[in-house]
């Protein structure tokens, strides 16, 4: 398969606001369940081990007309909860048996309660994670929470989740994360061969496809992209940060590229590479998940950083590792976690001499001219002056 075939498949999945793939997956065998989850992290292995399909719900993008969703949210709240409510109210999620709401911000947290009221037939659950990173304190808490969730999912799917199937699921996701990391590394090494708009779609596909299928797709893409010859442009290498929840419209990602930027790292959909290393397979799988969460997971603004001296280093690290020349802070309007984190990260970057710019978007932003202009100027100035 060529990259364009794969991308076409991904585009189809991306544009499908009726979730036909998941519907068909569910219909294929009686008793199958689908469990939706919102950004940025949930333990997908647990859902998988329960025999259900984990399905990422990432808002409505720029193609969904939001009518009822706006009736639930004031204008100063970001877009993703309203388009998600729209998806629910219009029956597009009627086949979903459970919804998990991660502990990312007050908006999604409250949405978990709204879902209970609006869709009483769906299992809606808030997934809390510890902000204390000691094994005996936060770890213990998280182990218990995960076990609780494991029980609930088991009940939903009609069979308890045993350790063996959980280990199996962890192994599948370990493999998937390995491939995801590989795609990211490939793009960082040769961004002209793996344009970000494509990589983005590829990762989005992972939100809806069964994990085995997605892993296969990642492998095929890597192979195809490596083989294809694409022109290399004189673009500036940048890292995008702040977009871990509500997703920017695809046209925005394209605009940034068009304006002369190669995106070499980003924080879109962190869930697919949340655990930075393999989750161990030996021993208590729940404890392994918890420990990986505590000590080996991605940093993002929804997670507390106990150590002041380490604050923001994850971003500097990404810049160094990916040989980026600058950072674009790109956050959804009204996103408290991203916007409050921003000044702290900027101070750290400034201290390390990394240039940056910042702007906001909404999942349905239409006007790209200001974006092109800012990204373009940023690229211009790095380019025109780096040699001078």
């Amino acid at each position, binding site marked *: 398969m060529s990259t364009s075939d794969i991308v076409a498949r991904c585009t189809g999945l991306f544009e499908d606001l009726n979730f036909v793939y998941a519907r068909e997956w569910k219909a294929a065998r009686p008793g199958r369940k689908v469990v939706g989850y919102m950004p940025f992290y949930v333990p997908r292995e647990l859902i998988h081990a329960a025999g259900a399909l984990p399905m990422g719900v990432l808002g409505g993008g720029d193609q969904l007309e939001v009518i009822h969703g706006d009736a639930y949210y004031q204008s100063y709240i970001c877009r993703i909860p309203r388009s998600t409510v729209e998806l629910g109210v219009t029956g597009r999620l009627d086949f979903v048996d459970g919804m998990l709401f991660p502990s990312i911000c007050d908006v999604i947290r409250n949405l978990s309660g709204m879902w209970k009221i609006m869709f009483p037939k769906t299992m809606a659950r808030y997934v809390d994670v510890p902000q204390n990173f000691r094994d005996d304190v936060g770890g213990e808490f998280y182990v218990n929470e995960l076990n609780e969730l494991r029980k609930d999912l088991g009940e939903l799917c009609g069979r308890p989740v045993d350790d063996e199937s959980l280990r199996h699921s962890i192994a599948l996701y370990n493999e998937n994360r390995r491939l995801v990391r590989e795609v990211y590394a490939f793009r960082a090494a040769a961004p002209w061969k793996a344009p970000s708009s494509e990589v983005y779609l590829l990762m989005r596909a992972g939100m809806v496809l069964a994990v085995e299928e997605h892993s296969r797709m990642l492998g095929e893409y890597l192979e195809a992209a490596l083989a294809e010859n694409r022109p290399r442009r004189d673009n500036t290498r940048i890292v995008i940060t702040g977009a871990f929840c509500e997703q920017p419209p695809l046209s925005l990602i394209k605009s940034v590229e068009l304006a002369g930027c190669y995106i070499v790292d980003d924080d879109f959909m962190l869930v697919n590479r949340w655990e930075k290393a393999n989750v161990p397979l030996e021993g208590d799988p729940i404890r392994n998940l918890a420990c990986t969460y505590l000590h080996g997971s991605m940093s993002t603004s929804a997670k507390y950083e106990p150590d002041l001296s380490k604050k923001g280093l994850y971003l500097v690290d990404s810049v160094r590792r990916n040989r980026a020349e600058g950072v674009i802070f790109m956050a959804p309007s009204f996103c408290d976690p991203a916007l409050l984190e921003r000044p702290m990260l900027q101070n750290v970057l400034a201290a390390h001499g990394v240039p940056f710019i910042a702007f906001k978007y909404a999942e349905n932003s239409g006007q790209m001219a200001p974006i092109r202009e800012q990204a373009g100027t940023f690229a*211009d100035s790095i380019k*025109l002056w780096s040699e001078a």
Partner: protein
Amino acid sequence: MTITAGVDVGTGSIKTVLFEVEGGRTHWLVRRTDRVRQRDPLKLAAQAYDQALEEAGLRRGDVHYVATTGEGESLDFHTGHFYSMTTHARGAIYLEPSARAVLDVGALHGRAIRVDARGKVLTYKMTSQCASGSGQFLENIARYLGVGQDEIGKLSRQADNPEKVSGICAVLAETDVINMVSRNISAPNILKGIHLSMSDRLAKLLKTIGGIDGTVLMTGGLALDDGLLAAMQETMQREKVAVQVTAHRDSIYAGAIGAALWGAFRHEKLARLDALAAA
């Protein structure tokens, strides 16, 4: 010798300049502005460009590099495109070599740009979407008050008790203004009020880019509005920011100038590279 053109396609007007660059020496050949006023900007830009050439007695073939900026990316006769802030920064340094910050105020957006002595953009800040502090808004209000564009500045400077507009939204701000008229607030006080509200925003932009001192050059169409300039100066003084805000009579051309000069820079560089390749 390099002949370059800069075409700045704006929402309010199109600015076209022609330059002759020889070594470090630049010679400004032609300048012109054409108000868009409900015409197709791209067609207008092409016309304007041809007329500029005619004024200079040149033909399209004589120009070595046509650089566009603003919304001119899709003009078919351009050699290269530079983004607005890149060009305004360069243009500002051309007009006012001591400038270390640029305040570009056009029909829809305001931008503060910090630059170094060579016209490099260091940081910038743009107004966000909601904007009553835009040229378009001022233009509408002026029309409502029956004031000509070139009179705005003079009237504003006669204000004795300016009244600021409150809203963030231009539509609601318009209502504010209507309310003011009904309360018999004079046109100078209203205009000055708007100028002050705009200056507040712009000053905030300037402060967020940080580290400015020395001269700030206003560029874009509103640089011609000496009422805004005066309000800006007052605001900076009130806020105790030790900078000199100035405008240049050719400020409106900053973008076009910057484009033309960057064009010349690229042209010479490309020529050098070609020469290298040929050798």
